[in-house]
């Protein structure tokens, strides 16, 4: 093929592309829309966020106010999900609980994204000893079963919601560091990075302007999936009494107190468990869908 042929071909291709006007994001959106599971996950997340934001307007009762006349009642028209051992409306507590779970999940993952992506990017970009040092430390964190690491951190910091967020934040750091490191390594020797460097761009500019935007996709997918894990872990910590303290309507804690009444009032622990499951499911489905839409070959 002669040079002119090639240039003609390139020109036609360019014309076709501009004719279709399909950016990578648009085709991603198209793939996402075609994925039924992803859409269901997306709308479930939207519903949960809506419930959390409008909790005050939706909840039929106060989540903390006790009413000793109606303790441990099974689901009825007055109390759709029944009442707990203090006569509190479980539906209202579930509604308010969504705020807590979402917040812990999202804030916890944000902490790990900031620290993990920071470390991973530095590690991958500079390589050499820096890389060695950071990744060996990450390996040590990885040597702990993750739930145990979160538990150890909370046991030191003391129980409470903020500490759970910190623990959750730390325990996902190595995963984000690894993902962003490999994303950075895969682009750092490409021509456009070299071009930016040869034009005199600083390390910071190259990283923020050219390297990071190219590792956004796996980080978005991982974040979504990690929110699911974070919610699950946080509820586990609360279940063990290490998370949110009473009377906070946290789902894991509600489930834990419900255990005492399992024989007489099984709904008290059954319903919070279902709530946890559906919220985690929503983020897992969304994460799955995003992965398939952004890059079907991504190994996550």
């Amino acid at each position: 093929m002669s040079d002119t042929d090639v240039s003609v071909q390139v020109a036609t291709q360019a014309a076709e592309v501009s004719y279709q006007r399909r950016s990578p994001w648009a085709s991603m959106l198209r793939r996402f829309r075609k994925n039924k599971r992803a859409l269901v996950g997306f709308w479930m997340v939207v519903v949960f966020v809506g419930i959390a934001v409008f909790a005050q307007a939706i909840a039929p009762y106060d989540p903390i106010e006790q009413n000793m006349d109606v303790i441990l009642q099974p689901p009825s028209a007055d109390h759709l999900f029944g009442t707990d051992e203090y006569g509190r409306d479980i539906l209202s507590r579930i509604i308010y609980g969504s705020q807590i779970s979402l917040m812990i999940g999202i804030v916890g993952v944000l902490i790990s994204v900031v620290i993990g992506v920071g470390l991973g990017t530095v590690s991958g970009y500079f390589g050499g000893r820096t890389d060695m040092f950071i990744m060996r430390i990450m390996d040590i964190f990885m040597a702990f079963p993750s739930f145990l690491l979160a538990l150890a951190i909370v046991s030191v910091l003391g129980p409470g919601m903020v500490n759970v967020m910190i623990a959750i934040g730390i325990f996902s750091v190595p995963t984000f560091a690894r993902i962003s490191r490999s994303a950075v390594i895969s682009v750092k020797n490409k021509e456009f990075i070299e071009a930016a460097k040869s034009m005199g761009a600083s390390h910071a500019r190259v990283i923020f302007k050219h390297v990071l935007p190219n590792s956004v996709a796996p980080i978005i997918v991982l974040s979504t999936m990690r929110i699911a894990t974070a919610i699950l872990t946080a509820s586990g910590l609360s279940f063990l009494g290490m998370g949110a303290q009473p009377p906070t309507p946290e789902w894991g804690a509600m489930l834990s107190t419900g255990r005492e009444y399992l024989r007489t009032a099984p709904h008290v622990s059954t319903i919070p468990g279902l709530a946890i499951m559906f919220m985690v499911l929503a983020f897992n489905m969304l994460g799955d869908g995003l992965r398939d839409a952004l890059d079907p070959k991504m190994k996550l």
Partner: protein
Amino acid sequence: MLGYIAKRLLQMIPTLIGVSILCFIIIHSVPGDPANLIAGVDATAEEIQIVKERLGLDRPLYEQYGSYVMGLLQGDMGKSLRSDRPVAEELLTRFPSTIMLTMLSVVVMVLVGLFAGIMSAIRPNSMRDNATMMVSLFGISMPVFWSGIMLILVFSYYLQWLPSGGSTQLKHYILPAIALGLSSSAVLARLTRSSILEVIHQDFIRTARAKGVREKLIIYKHTLKNALIPIITIVGLEFGHLLGGAVLTETVFSMNGIGRYIIQSIQFRDYPAIQGSILFVAAIFVIVNLVVDLCYGAVDPRIRYD
């Protein structure tokens, strides 16, 4: 092969040192002085000082770490504040129960996960495949403490088939192992499905079909064998998940294992016990990962250790 094992064992040492340093730092960054806690609320400054000296808490941190590691090498993990017995002893009495639970959970995970994954992969995108994958998504999203409680509700309270707690007989382990194993089997099922689908379109499978090998044999002998590497990897990773999940499962089923011991130690602020048990579990996890790496060679002769 022996050389490789030796090399890997040596490589474990820095990791284990790192793990022990991290454990040590975590436990020693506790706000408040453990000596106050040990001496009691109404202890005088003098009494606290005596406790500090006895435990060596007045020495610099690196010296404390040094003597802790020297102790570890001799199998000494310090004494539990709660029972005044050696932590190592406390852990060893609880170890069989936890390892039994994790092993049985691995069995549940592999049986259910492999079966579901194969069933899904045989007819991709069929009703059966979609249903299995949906169920496994539910399984991944289910909190293990909740599924444990639901199993107690159904099989202990309503049907009265199995006990709801304890850890002395085999029947005590059935429900906990199912609860714990099922959550991981969902992960395994998804991975098995995708690994099989990756292999099944390759030429050697087509050749096998062309020469008339039965479909069952193709799946179990040709495909599964080649899809085993990622499957073994996930079994190793999930082992860590199971060890962590054992904390929750043992609490739900009142089992006398290391997981519940950690929780009890945390509640009592028994720091030598927390430190020892977390280190112990992390060490098990590191060893399991080594075993997994060695399994690769057994499964795939293309992998050589040299």
